[in-house]
Each structure stands twice: as C-alpha cells, then as structure tokens.
C-alpha cells in the first residue's frame, strides 16, 4: 500500500533523478541532453554473478567434500580398540563408536563410499529413468506410454522396503549391487517425476517445430524438454541423493553393499544411534556432515540454476538503471532490480 511506504524508499521517483525533460517535439528525436549514462554496462553483468551466491553452498560443501576426498589420507593406522561408546577424551577426541573404534578416524575414512555410492546410484537411477520418463511424455501414444510406465508402476506398488528385502537376499554383496539396488528403488519415482514435469513441456509448439526440423527424439528430449525442466530435475536429484545415502545404510543391514561396520557416514549414523544419548558424537558428526553435504548440494544447484537463468536473461544490469527507471520494475521482466 502506497501510504505505508515512506517515499524515501523509492529514490528512483525523486524528481532529481529525472533527466531534463525533452523540449520540443520528439519528432526531432534528439538524444537526451544528458544521455543516460551507460552506467556500468558491464560492471555487474548478470544477477547473481560471481561467486557470492555460491558462498553458502561452497562453505557447506567444503567440509564434507574435503573430508571425503582427503580424510583417508590422514586417517592413519587404526589405534587400539576401546570400550564402545566412550565419550570424548582418552585419546579419542570424538569418543568411540559402537565397536569401540575412534569416531574421528571413522569420520575421516567414511566419506568416500557415501559420496560415491549415493552419487552413482542417483546417477544410474536418472540414467535409466530419464529416458523412460521423457519418452513417455513425448510419445503421445497411450499404448507406448503404458508400455513404458505401467511396469514401473508395478515395481512401485511393491513397497521399496520389500523390494530391498527381497532383492537383497538374492544379490551378491558389493558396491555394484548396492548401486543397482538403490537405483532400482528410485527408478520408478524418477520416471514419474520426470514424466510429470515433461508432460506440459512436451506439448509445446517448439517441440512440434523441432519435429518438423527433423530433430531426433533424443535431441528433442534432452536438448529441449530435459533442459527446460532442469530445475525440477535438480531439485529432485538433490533430495534423492540424501535419500540414497540412507538407503545405502539401510541396505548395509540387509547384507548388501558396504559392511555393516563399514566406515561410512550414513552407516555410522545408523549404527551408533543406540549410543546416541551417552556418546552423541558418533551420530552427530557424521549426520552433520551428511546434512552439510546435502544442503550444500541443493544450495549449489539452486545457485547454479539461478545464475544460469540470470545469464540467459543476458542483460546489462546497469547499476544506475534503477535510479533512471520510470517505474521501479518489480513486475517481472526487469530482473534488473534483483540482485
């Protein structure tokens, strides 16, 4: 409401900011006497340019990623085993875990598998589900769509835990099996989400135009449809990654994948929970790392996409433009005002 806003809040409206009005008819169209300065045409180009928007994400990601990458190098040899769930002290500065190992050493060792297996599983799930979901959205033929999606619905109708229980009993343990299993559970979901997101996009006239151009299905699907829903995919992948992390932990109990006492953050969180009240660090530290990792990944995606959108807007953001604008442009087009 206008009255509620102090006028000072709108410096752009102040008369002083107006250029001298043009005398004479505009027919002459002389350039404005005081030509609006091409204020900093390239000073601050894109909204959210530079590394600033990435700062929180990178800060969050740095710790877990560095630990995952370099932790094992600093882990050193295993020290003597202590009593389980000893609180910090006594040479274990984060205490001991459920089998009396040093929590800090486990933390150092436990990042790689988490990051790798979960990332691979999500990657595989997407690799399998994205084409299916896109094809289903693009086919336009019910039969094909049904042929693609209904079998996945069947998989979906089996509770994922049951799938895990049932399949894990038949799998030879190992990281590959784990990736397979976690991907398997995620494929129907991803396919559906992709299909949902692509449904509207696939019906746009651009897609028809591309068909007329003879573009391959692949290129239409990936080059346009998938690209248009990148944000959705990123949002979904970001959360799915977290889900995958803990699925890895769950699966490890069922005898699939990493050993149940593996140095793995997610497994640590799960296994040390019994001691959560006497020795919280065995849970809290890996949980914080996982949280930092996933929050970081999500914020990173957000920032990257925001930046991309800003790039696509491809405009000069003149620093002075706001002051020169006739009306403050909050209405849309002018992302100009948004940092």
């Amino acid at each position, binding site marked *: 409401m206008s009255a509620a806003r102090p006028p000072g809040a709108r410096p752009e409206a102040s008369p002083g900011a107006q250029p001298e009005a043009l005398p004479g008819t505009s027919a002459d169209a002389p350039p404005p006497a005081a030509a609006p300065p091409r204020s900093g045409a390239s000073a601050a180009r894109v909204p959210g340019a530079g590394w600033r928007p990435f700062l929180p994400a990178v800060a969050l990601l740095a710790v877990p990623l560095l630990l995952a990458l370099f932790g094992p190098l600093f882990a050193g040899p295993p020290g003597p085993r202590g009593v389980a769930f000893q609180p910090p002290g006594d040479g274990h500065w984060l205490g001991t875990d459920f089998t009396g190992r040093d929590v800090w050493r486990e933390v150092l060792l436990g990042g790689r598998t988490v990051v790798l297996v979960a990332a691979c599983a999500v990657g595989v799930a997407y690799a399998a589900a994205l084409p299916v979901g896109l094809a289903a959205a693009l086919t336009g033929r019910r039969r094909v769509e049904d042929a693609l999606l209904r079998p996945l619905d069947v998989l979906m*109708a089996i509770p994922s835990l049951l799938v895990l229980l049932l399949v894990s009993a038949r799998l030879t343990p190992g990281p590959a099996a784990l990736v397979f299993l976690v991907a398997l559970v995620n494929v129907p979901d991803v396919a*559906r989400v992709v299909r949902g997101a692509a449904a509207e996009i696939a019906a746009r006239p651009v897609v028809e135009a591309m068909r007329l151009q003879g573009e391959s299905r692949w290129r239409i699907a990936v080059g346009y449809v998938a690209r248009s829903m990148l944000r959705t995919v990123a949002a979904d992948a970001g959360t799915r990654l977290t889900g995958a992390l803990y699925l890895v932990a769950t699966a490890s109990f069922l005898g699939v994948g990493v050993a149940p006492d593996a140095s793995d953050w997610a497994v640590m969180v799960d296994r040390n929970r019994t001691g959560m009240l006497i020795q919280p660090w065995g849970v809290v530290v890996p949980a914080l790392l*996982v949280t930092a990792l996933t929050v970081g990944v999500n914020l990173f995606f957000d920032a990257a996409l925001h930046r991309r959108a800003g790039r696509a807007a491809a405009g000069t953001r003149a620093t002075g433009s706001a002051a020169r604008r006739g009306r403050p442009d909050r209405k849309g087009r002018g992302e100009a005002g948004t940092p």
Partner: protein
Amino acid sequence: MTGLAHFAVRRLALGLLQTAAVVVLVFVLTEALPGDAAVALAGDQPDPARVEAIRQAMRLDEPAAQRFADWVLGLLRGDLGTSLVSGRPVSSYLAGGLGPTLLLAGITLALLVPLSLVLGVAAAGREGGPLDRAISTVTVGLYAVPEFALGILLITVVALRGGLLPPTAVGAGGDLLAQPAVLVLPVAVLLARPVCSLSRLVRAGMVEALASDYVRHARRQGLGEARVRYAHALPNALAPAVQQLARTTDWLLCGVIVVEALFVIPGLGTLLVEAVAARDVPVVQGLAVVFGLVTVVVNLAADLVVHRLAPRGEVVA
C-alpha cells in the same frame, strides 16, 4: 464416455493387471527368499525334524505353484487366506494394521500438502533470497536427518525432557484416536522428509512459472500476489510434485516402519516387516494386494491431475 473417463477406466483395468503382476512378483520374490516360514518359526532351534514337521503342518511341502493357485482361488472368492504362523485369517491382520496406518497417513497428508505448497511457493517468491535459502536449508537439513534420529531427538526433548507429549503410543493399541496426543510426534517425524522433497519440487516449478509470460500478464491485471502465485503460477508448477506426492504413499505405507517402531504404532509397515521376517507368505501376499491396489489408484489419481495440468498434451499428433 469422455476421453478422461475412458482413460480412467482403461487405467483401472490395467491397474487390475498391475495388481496381479504385483502379487505374482511378490509371491515369486518371497518364495525366492532363503528359508521359509518353518525355518523362520524354528528360530534358534532349527532342529531339522521339527522344521520338517512345521513345514508339513503349514502345507509348505506342497509345490509353490499349487499353494499360489489355492491362494488365488481363495482370493477370487474374496478370501485372503490364513496366516501360516498363527492360522488366523489374513484379513484380520490387514484390518488391524490398516487403521493406524490410514490414520497416520491421512493426518500426514492433510498437513503435508498445504505445508509443502506454502513453503515451495514462498521459497520461489524470491529466488536466491534469504527466505528461499532459509527454507531450502531447513527443509533439506531436516531431510538429511534420518527419521530415527529426528524421532529420538523429538522424544527426548519434547516428551522426556519437556514432558509435553507422550513419548510412545504404547498401550494405545489400535485406537490411536482415543489419545490424539500420541500422534503428534509421529506425524511430525513423518512430515519432515516428504515436506522437503515436495516443497523443493514445487519451488522449482514455481521459479519457472513465475518467470513466465502468463504470470507477468496476470500481474498486469493487477491481481493480488497471492492470487497470482497460487492460482496462476502454482498449477503450472505442480505436476512433478503431484507425482512425487503419489509416491509418498509408499513412504506412508511402509517407509513409516521406523516411525511405527519408534512410537509403537502397529501399522501396516510393522506388519509387513514381521510377515517377511516370518516368511508368512499369505500375509505378505495380502499386503501386496493392498499395496498394489492403493498404488494403482493413487498413481491413477496423480496421472489424472497431471493430465489436467498439461491440457495441451492431448493435441499431440
């Protein structure tokens, strides 16, 4: 009939097929599990003679195909069979577990949908802004905390330290509504994860939608911001979230196992785990039927909504 009704009927028919496929698949997989009900029942006394006796008593010595056929015949008569372990009808098992699960799922969904919409929309309002970041960080952060940890945390802080709510539903049995207070914490834990995935999807769609021409045009009409966001932008942002919501049934049906265990709520999830552990095939099968049907219906509903949200889809040549 209209196209949509055709679509629904066709899908329901397919749904029956799917349910059948689910049932067969579950049967095969359960059969393929190592061990059987007899072995599971024998536990740490796997005396081979005794196991054999149990097996005979359970008719497990008959071929799997025949047991399956018997079960299907029973199903056609509306009989879900009897539990191998207790000999009680499977339907009584399902009836017992369904109540708590439906109650939890219902309450969770009723809170989940508005909450995630509001959060998603609010976050998208100013992409990259402080509110957006705050919402993303909190929801994703909650998502990254495993539910048992969250559950234990809530129980410790709210129930045990604060004494505000009962820590578990022990003793409430199937009648949870008699003590609504016991539901608060389980629902809170159940909500934490889906709220994140849904609101993130809503946010993603909203960011795109808010940058679109039609939203800009809606604003030109002088529509209120809430109207623009919820009535004009949101429907365009919803399709993936709706699909994900459909998938939440899985979560609510069996992902709740931890919640059910932590709070002692004897729902379907618990039933499933126990039935699989006991290799109680008829009970697992009964659950598969229920899960199959629910999934078919929920997926169909989601597809119908998505269909409505992408009306242009029908013109594809």
